[in-house]
């Protein structure tokens, strides 16, 4: 009677969804690598190293956007501090990349350059094990996951909701940023980590490594989309949406909303961290500015532009905003923030369901989650009128 999990995973996407994923995989794993490696630079179809890195970066952002949509679009939790989990994932993997430099640094010793500069004689205790790739992967998941779990545990247990929760997440990312700016914290201060040389002994700047990282980013995005679709079509997802719409009602029918929120919140943070770990080797640098409050707000803008509660909307939003960003910052560097502001206001006023909402409207279809703006607060007002 019970359907195996693999079949249910398969069934959670419609046929068009699998087709789109197959096309995406073909482009990311075959077409782009071929165009990058095989075609001469003179060919109009040649994909430059700049483009591969840019697209790989945006794929990582897209993963973050989908993770954000899982908590904002489906569970109604707006985090304005998701950048902290992304950056911590990046730092955790960056530590490994720093150790891979070995004695090729400016000072020619095994200690990372910034530690030599600070006149430290040996690695601090929390750097122990950072030369192991496997340990780095464990840390990428464990550190941001643990931070999210502990933070979420206190916030959700105290029933902190809505704008209050958003403000506290801003404080979380800002405080962590200030901590990482200090040289004494042991993560390179305001310069962060850079000048990476190798991963697993292979040259990090080679075209092959660039394509491997790009391909892995694409694979992560696809995996996150499939996982996300499974979650939101499962009973778990329906409970989350019910919590979003009428939390106290959910409590009265016997669910513990705190546990559901904590589960999706921690998962979302871990997905961000994985994206951060893939992002750092591609851009070649990680520093505390990744944790600036504005960065986290930008994540919310991607999801709003693409369309909340749709999963694919986050991907679309991340691509639109970041392609526009790389265009503006090259051509009109002074106007980017104005454009971002107008975009956010425009989308909020005219496209409440984002690009995906517009697309569905044009095709005359009902949006999957109509009017998430109006959760019924009925149950919470009951106590007042005895």
């Amino acid at each position, binding site marked *: 009677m019970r359907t195996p999990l693999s079949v249910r995973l398969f069934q959670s996407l419609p046929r068009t969804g699998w087709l789109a994923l197959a096309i995406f995989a073909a482009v990311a794993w075959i077409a782009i690598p071929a165009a990058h490696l095989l075609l001469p630079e003179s060919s109009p179809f040649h994909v430059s190293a700049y483009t591969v890195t840019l697209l790989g970066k945006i794929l990582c952002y897209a993963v973050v956007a989908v993770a954000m949509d899982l908590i904002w679009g489906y569970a109604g939790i707006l985090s304005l501090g998701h950048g902290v989990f992304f950056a911590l994932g990046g730092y955790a993997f960056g530590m490994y990349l720093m150790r891979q430099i070995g004695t090729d640094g400016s000072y020619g010793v095994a200690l990372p350059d910034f530690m030599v500069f600070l006149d430290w004689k040996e690695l601090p205790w929390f750097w122990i094990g950072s030369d192991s790739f496997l340990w780095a992967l464990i840390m990428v998941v464990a550190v941001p996951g643990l931070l999210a779990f502990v933070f979420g545990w206190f916030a959700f247990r105290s029933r902190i909701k809505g704008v209050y929760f958003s403000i506290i997440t801003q404080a979380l990312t800002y405080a962590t940023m200030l901590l990482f700016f200090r040289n004494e914290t042991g993560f390179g201060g305001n310069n962060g980590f850079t000048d990476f040389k190798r991963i697993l002994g292979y040259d990090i700047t080679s075209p092959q490594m660039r394509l491997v990282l790009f391909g892995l980013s694409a694979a992560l995005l696809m995996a996150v989309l499939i996982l996300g679709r499974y979650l939101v079509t499962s009973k778990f997802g329906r409970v989350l949406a019910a919590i979003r719409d009428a939390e106290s009602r959910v409590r009265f029918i016997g669910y*513990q909303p705190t546990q559901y929120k904590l589960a999706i919140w921690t998962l979302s943070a871990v997905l961000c961290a994985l994206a951060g770990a893939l992002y750092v080797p591609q851009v070649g640098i990680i520093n505390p500015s990744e944790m600036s409050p504005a960065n986290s707000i930008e994540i919310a803008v991607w999801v709003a532009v693409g369309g909340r509660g749709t999963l694919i909307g986050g991907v679309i939003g991340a691509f639109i905003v970041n392609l526009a960003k790389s265009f503006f910052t090259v051509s009109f560097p002074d106007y980017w923030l104005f454009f971002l502001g107008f975009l956010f206001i425009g989308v909020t006023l005219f496209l409440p369901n984002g690009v995906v909402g517009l697309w569905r409207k044009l095709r005359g279809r009902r949006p999957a989650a109509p009017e998430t703006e109006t959760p019924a607060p009925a149950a919470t007002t009951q106590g007042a009128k005895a």
Partner: protein
Amino acid sequence: MSTAMHDGIASSGRAGDSHVLRPGELDLSHKVILYLEDISVSFDGFKALNNLSLTIDAGELRAIIGPNGAGKTTMMDVITGKTRPDSGKAFFGQTLDLTRMNEPEIAHAGIGRKFQKPTIFENHSVFENLELAMKTDKRVWKSLFAQLSGEERDRVSDTLKRIRLQTEADRPAGLLSHGQKQWLEIGMLLMQEPRLLLLDEPVAGMTDEETERTAELFVSLAGQHSLVVVEHDMSFVEALGGQVTVLHEGSVLAEGSLAKVQADPRVIEVYLGR
């Protein structure tokens, strides 16, 4: 007999009444499902409940009436764990102390509540609303891999039939009429298989025909379930036909059949004023 000696509740009772205390399980050995004793609740000095005492028998259908501000909703809040009483005792059956349980625990123990204003999940379909309410293991891990069995599907469709919403199963609940929403909420309550149902103004905004059908439904549920109905509509209370409790200023003013309480001069005074 020896167990009765150690069982605080049974030891005060009659011989032959011995039973084993099982924690977390509803004990109806004394035929009473809900005890409220000297419950007081005050909000900023205002006494919403004032030494309220009330008992509901298992299988009973009880109507609660009273003017605005009599404490009907606060009483429901105390029973469901939403409000903690300042003093007094609240027991579900013989053994479950409601003042020490939180809302989901009380829901699991078997008390279901329908709110004054229907609070269904508007973005979910009618079927999904019932599915979410169904009595089952509601922890995260179970929900992640949950699948409806054939028997569970049957239970949902039985309830759909009972609340006359078979044809609306796949529509978003937000598109239902007001009366249908009230019924869906009653259906969600039934899916939880509660032993005690608390219904706050269940027929508000219903047409006469819907009101009549609701009364029929409640009467058919009594016996198997115990029901506490708060209602203003006297013809509806009459159709229910059970005992009536009148609340006034946070305590019980009168109790008995509808005809008896309607003849009570104190009740008349409270309702009509001086």
